[in-house]
């Protein structure tokens, strides 16, 4: 079946540095992906999305890269801030959302 594989690592970065969070997916037919941020005690919050006809999309301080050849997504956060500390999930959108397991981002001041 389809799956979005994201083991649960922890990424620790220094405030002001850039962060890169990675995600692998398995369904090559997927055409839409979303990155979510989830803070403790809250539901996931939409960050940025990308469709499969693009390989890069930029938002405010965030960039998503999509490599369809190797079925890989990444989320880049520029100038990481303490408020960016959270768990980040990629999700594959079909007739339902399929989430990966998440990456914990810790920002050290």
């Amino acid at each position, binding site marked *: 079946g389809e799956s979005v594989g994201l083991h649960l690592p922890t990424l620790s970065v220094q405030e002001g540095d850039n962060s890169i969070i990675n995600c692998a997916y398995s369904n090559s037919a997927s055409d839409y992906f979303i990155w979510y941020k989830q803070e403790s005690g809250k539901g996931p919050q939409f960050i940025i999305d990308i469709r499969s006809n693009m390989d890069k999309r930029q938002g405010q301080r965030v960039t998503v890269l999509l490599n369809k050849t190797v079925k890989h997504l990444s989320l880049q956060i520029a100038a990481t801030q303490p408020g960016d500390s959270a768990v980040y999930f990629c999700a594959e959108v079909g007739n339902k*959302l399929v989430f990966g*397991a998440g990456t914990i981002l810790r920002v050290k001041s």
Partner: protein
Amino acid sequence: GAGVSQSPRYKVAKRGQDVALRCDPISGHVSLFWYQQALGQGPEFLTYFQNEAQLDKSGLPSDRFFAERPEGSVSTLKIQRTQQEDSAVYLCASSLLGSSYNEQFFGPGTRLTVL
């Protein structure tokens, strides 16, 4: 405006008890989704409503799980004869239109602990 709200925020149940979890979606949102999130995992789809119609319940883990949205707004997820493996955070999300491609707005979740 108000976002998606869920109640209770925390629920402790003894094994075998029935529980009911409530979701108040954003007013006017057509679609409503329920997810189960185990500790350290991403949310997993349970079921989907478009207005009052339950269009997909493929993610419900057993017949002990039942969801309804009788008037197309508030939804209730009911779990009968709770088991320890039901312990998780139950998330509700709503979206304006009737497609998973529309942005889903999540509530804070209900943390269920089954003892």
